[in-house]
């Protein structure tokens, strides 16, 4: 508990440093490219175009409940790939960038946060495009968009808590990154990102109905609710409670593990 509060306090205190770190790290990576920072915008757009051609034109696929399939998919992909990137690179960031922090005057705990900022542009573009395309199908901005104020912080806090948790494991057990990759590969299909699981008759109904307990699915569906004005988050009832409880568990355990190994990271690496 104490550790979690300390972690949150550090995040707030070193927030500007985290932003600077991410700015310079994206700058240094984009310096090697001819187009530089344009890729930050271009990359998600190209990804969307590829998916549009494959799923929108070639497969002409459908989304559940008669929703427009492309925005349905784009929002899912945007939110999911944001979580995936933040958690995977955040988990790596502590062990790879530890050397930088050793010379500086800030705590290691902001490294996952710093790497998170770099992925925000991608999230904005993917979800933004999803919202814009949804407008062509007649889903205009509504009161439901106010839910962004709830889902967006939840998305960020969940991703950060998860990446802190995974980063501590990865310092002690470096092979963890492989498992993390496999888990995310599986979750991509298991969380209804590209297609809804309702189609599959082989999955028992009681598993389908409990999908919302999966935090990834909860967040993805939340963003889809915003776009299509389907529901308010409190209508999900106990799943909100479940999600927040999971968040608290992750934060407390993750922060504790982090503080436990923080003084000894150099011994492990």
């Amino acid at each position: 508990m104490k550790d979690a509060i300390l972690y949150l306090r550090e995040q707030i205190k070193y927030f500007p440093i985290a932003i600077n770190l991410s700015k310079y790290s994206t700058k240094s990576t984009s310096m090697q490219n001819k187009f530089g920072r344009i890729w930050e915008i271009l990359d998600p757009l190209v990804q969307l175009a590829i998916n549009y051609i494959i799923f929108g034109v070639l497969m002409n696929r459908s989304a559940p409940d008669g929703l427009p399939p492309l925005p349905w998919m784009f929002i899912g992909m945007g939110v999911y790939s944001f979580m995936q990137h933040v958690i995977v690179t955040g988990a790596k960031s502590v062990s790879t960038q530890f050397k930088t922090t050793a010379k500086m005057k800030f705590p290691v705990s902001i490294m996952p946060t710093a790497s998170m900022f770099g992925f925000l542009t991608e999230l904005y573009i993917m979800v933004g495009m999803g919202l814009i395309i949804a407008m062509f199908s007649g889903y205009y901005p509504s009161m439901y968009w106010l839910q962004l104020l709830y889902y967006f912080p939840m998305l960020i806090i969940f991703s950060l808590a998860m990446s802190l948790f995974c980063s501590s494991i990865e310092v002690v057990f470096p092979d963890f990154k492989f498992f993390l990759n496999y888990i995310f590969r599986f979750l991509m299909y298991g969380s209804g990102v590209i297609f809804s699981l309702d189609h599959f008759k082989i999955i028992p109904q009681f598993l389908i109905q409990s999908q919302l307990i999966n935090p990834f699915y909860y967040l993805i569906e939340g963003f889809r609710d915003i776009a299509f004005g389907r529901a308010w988050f409190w209508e999900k009832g106990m799943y909100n409670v479940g999600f927040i409880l999971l968040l608290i568990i992750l934060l407390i355990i993750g922060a504790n593990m982090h503080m436990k190994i923080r003084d000894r990271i150099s011994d492990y690496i």
Partner: protein
Amino acid sequence: MKAKLGFSIMAHQDPDIMIIDEGLSVGDKTFVDKSKKKMFEFRDQGKTILMVSHDMRTVKEWSDRVIWLNYGEVKAYGTPEEVIPEYEKFVRWFKSLSKKEQEAYKQEQRQAQFDYSVEELKKEIISKSSSKSRRVNREVTQSLKKKKDNHKLSFFSKIVVALCMLVFLWITLVSLSNTTLKKSVQHPVKFFSQNLFKAKEVSREDKQTSKTTESTITTSSSSENEEAISQSTSQPSTSESVTSTSESEPGTAEETTYVIQAGESLGSIAESKGLTVDAIQAVNPGIDFDVIRPGQTINLPTTAADATTEQPDEGVIQ
């Protein structure tokens, strides 16, 4: 270059204690001179500088006091004039050994490092302290313990985590069952014995049929569906009305679904399909045929004579 940068960053942060690990043995002469000047400046301000080096000349030149570390053990501590000759004596002695002896010495020291434990450290501290009372013993044990794991999850947060996990698991179980959270808390026994791992009332078949009627054309997974598409394209004017084939469950392989159109009666459907009214009623046990309305879905039996593929044609013609 990196060492230079590291040193510059450190100098700019204006620290109270500096630790330099062989940092200046790599730089060029001008840089070493510059950093030396800076370090002496820091020293005059009363700051502590801890430097690690193998170069005896730098040590002699820069330090006020010297610690000689040998395999993690403090061999000597004092002014450079005292310690350095001792160290040089040791080096000379080590060099005079044969290669085998050198190897053996290294092995021995390394093993000693491995074998060292907290228990031994405790013994050492206690034996060094002058008063051999129990209190000292306890204090030493305590302080060592504290140093070892000062980040244990506190009792309170353990309880919080355990409670959260419990509630979360409960919610997961409730989501896997066919009741609500409130009912499961009120009747926990019934919840565990009857409701667990059951689907909710909104049954899957309803969802499935509604989905297939909405998008028969797009879900082309099974061969039957493909046939349905080829037919419906061959007769464009009426293809919407016939949403047959596409069986939703494997158990009803000999039945087809049919959406009732406006102005149809059960008799006319049966006639157009070449079936009897009784036969249709037999495969639809749950439906009251006294009142049928347009848009309602019913099951039709397929006799051996008419294949599913032929029926829609007849149904359309009427």
